[in-house]
């Protein structure tokens, strides 16, 4: 293994590969910042460039750099505009955006950069240690367990996103799952719920839905109430203040430690990935925090920002484990990377480490360098990035709307997509008026296809729903999901009962 690390070091520190890391991170950050262009589309676009390099290690290093850069750029737009271009940074906007609106945009970006760096670095070290061993853990998972695991993820998200209104959050999750069934699935040969409309055949695109749920309502709110944006303008003067206090740093350390580990292991599980890791990370930290800190969550909490940022970067690194050791992509992004590797005549799998150690270790080491580049490159750039808040409202709002339109259009090259965007955006705005959480809807939509695929596979294998009780791990996970959903309501009811016995009025 030591020999492999040395080969990897020499490969990763060649001038060409160092340039690849820097170029990848820069391209990724700038494009990822535009709401709507996520890492998947950027990597897909960069594949021809990477393949033309001819060197598999350099190609993979470039693409991995783009991946990190895009995730980081996504958090920047989540914090500054509340317009996450990437599903994995949706949780970042929960606390990052309120913080930016309080005039602490600079601090929020620094915390995000430090948390990403720590998460990615710890993830890279864990990858080097656990990559061989972890493959056997992931191998134990059956499609029934994947199904159960996703149900756990969805109920956890609903239980924690709803702030006491679990039924509303679950309703949104179901709506997301329903939207995911529109169009042609991979497993059934035929379109569903398209009502003969050709443009619905390929389903609703994730980018369109993400834009409609987050960017468009926010832009409309800015239009409706000018007071919202004038508060944001006040922050442009405070962006010079990039530092966070020592006390805030001390708060972040345990969060970063826990979330690096948790995020990494969630990232290893195929199908889970950065999105679930960031939401679960947010939820777990919120539950661990003391009641005083819990109130801050959603209003610009340091912990609430550091948790998803650490977790999503750790998970990005973790998602390379199944790709490099098993040849199974754990997420859409790593699936695209797999395609690029095969085009370069490299077959990732258990033999990659012995046959071509320079690729395996160069990628792992360049991940560490990539994180360093992001920190060194992005921290000085933060004041310039944050200038976007100083653009006059009359110019900014049409541009936000234009970028949402472009994001939806580029993904599908279909003008009908724009009409779907406007329709869903109006729906999302109304839902926001009534305090329905929108993140569960989006996550339900993203996981919907995978959830059904795994459900289908287990049903086929067991010729019926027996897998639910015949596999102890599946049953255990599903019980956990049920507990997660019922617990908040139960706690609230008990608190009310307690208040009543003490003779305190309930308030309604």
């Amino acid at each position: 293994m030591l020999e492999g690390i040395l080969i990897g070091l020499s490969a990763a520190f060649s001038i060409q590969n160092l340039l690849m890391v820097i170029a990848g991170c820069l391209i990724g950050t700038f494009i990822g910042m535009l709401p709507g262009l996520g890492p998947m589309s950027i990597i897909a676009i960069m594949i021809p460039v990477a393949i033309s390099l001819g060197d598999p290690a350099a190609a993979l290093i470039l693409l991995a750099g783009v991946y990190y850069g895009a995730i980081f750029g996504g958090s920047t737009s989540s914090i500054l505009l509340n317009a996450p271009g990437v599903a994995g940074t949706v949780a970042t906007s929960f606390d990052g955006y309120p913080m930016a609106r309080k005039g602490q945009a600079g601090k929020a970006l620094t915390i995000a950069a430090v948390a990403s760096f720590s998460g990615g670095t710890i993830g890279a070290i864990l990858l080097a240690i656990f990559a061989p061993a972890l493959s056997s853990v992931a191998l134990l998972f059956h499609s029934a367990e994947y199904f159960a695991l996703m149900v756990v993820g969805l109920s956890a998200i609903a239980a924690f996103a709803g702030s006491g209104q679990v039924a509303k959050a679950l309703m949104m999750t179901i709506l997301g799952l329903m939207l995911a069934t529109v169009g042609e699935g991979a497993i059934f040969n035929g379109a569903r719920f398209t009502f003969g409309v050709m443009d619905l055949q390929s389903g609703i695109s994730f980018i369109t839905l993400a834009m409609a749920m987050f960017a468009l309502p926010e832009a409309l709110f800015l239009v409706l109430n000018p007071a919202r944006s004038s508060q944001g303008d006040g922050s442009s003067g405070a962006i010079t203040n990039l530092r966070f206090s020592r006390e805030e740093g001390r708060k972040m350390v345990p969060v970063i430690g826990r979330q690096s580990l948790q995020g990494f292991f969630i990232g290893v599980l195929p199908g889970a990935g950065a999105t679930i890791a960031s939401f679960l990370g947010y939820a777990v930290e919120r539950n661990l925090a003391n009641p005083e800190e819990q109130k801050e969550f959603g209003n610009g909490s340091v912990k609430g920002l550091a948790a998803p940022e650490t977790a999503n970067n750790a998970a990005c690194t973790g998602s390379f484990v199944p790709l490099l050791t098993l040849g199974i992509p754990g997420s859409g992004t790593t699936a695209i990377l797999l395609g690029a590797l095969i085009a370069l005549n490299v077959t990732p799998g258990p033999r990659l480490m012995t046959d071509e150690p320079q690729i395996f270790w160069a990628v792992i080491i360049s991940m560490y360098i990539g994180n360093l580049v992001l920190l060194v490159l992005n921290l000085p750039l933060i004041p310039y990035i944050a200038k976007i808040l100083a653009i006059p409202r009359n110019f900014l709002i049409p541009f936000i709307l234009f970028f949402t339109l472009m994001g939806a259009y580029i993904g599908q090259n279909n003008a009908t997509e724009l009409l779907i965007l406007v329709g869903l955006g109006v729906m999302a705005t109304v839902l926001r008026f009534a305090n329905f959480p929108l993140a569960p809807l989006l996550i339900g939509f993203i996981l919907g296809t995978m959830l059904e695929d795994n459900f289908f596979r287990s049903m086929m294998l067991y010729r019926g729903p027996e897998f639910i009780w015949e596999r102890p791990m599946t049953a255990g996970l599903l019980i956990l999901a049920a507990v997660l959903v019922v617990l908040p309501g139960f706690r609230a009811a008990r608190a009310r009962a307690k208040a009543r016995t003490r003779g305190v009025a309930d308030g309604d």
Partner: protein
Amino acid sequence: MALDRWIALIFVAFCCAYGYVAFFAMDGALRPFELRNPIWPSTFPKILSVIGLVLGMFVLLGFEKSEESQPGATDIDYRRLTDYNLGQAIGLLVLMVVYAHTLRPMGFLLTTTLFLVTGSALLGERRWLLMIVVAALATGFVWYLVQQVLGIFLRPLPFFMGN
């Protein structure tokens, strides 16, 4: 009835329609050999529609105590929606719909410049020259980025001027 319960009512209606399609309209298209499968294309939607109905009724009938929080200064209170710049918001939405319909026939460059200028004008900007210059520059830059760098085709000019 509060807005969230109205939404729940609409959701229940939506679940009924969705469930109707799943339970009664979808299985007719199955081929004979598919009937022997333990799972059909309609299985998952059926489960979803039942869960959705239960949850929708739960919210509709108000089983869950929701603390009605007073909206803050920057939050929007939908009960007095007309106090806000509703006209501007609707105008921009209409503009987006118009953009969707004119993007292909009129070409990217012209439509986008007009969209950005009209959008700013709707919001009350009156520095016309600045608006036109900014919009034209931004449009040209985005077009160059998308078309030349990313290689995604966007028809730049109106239909009667070739591609």
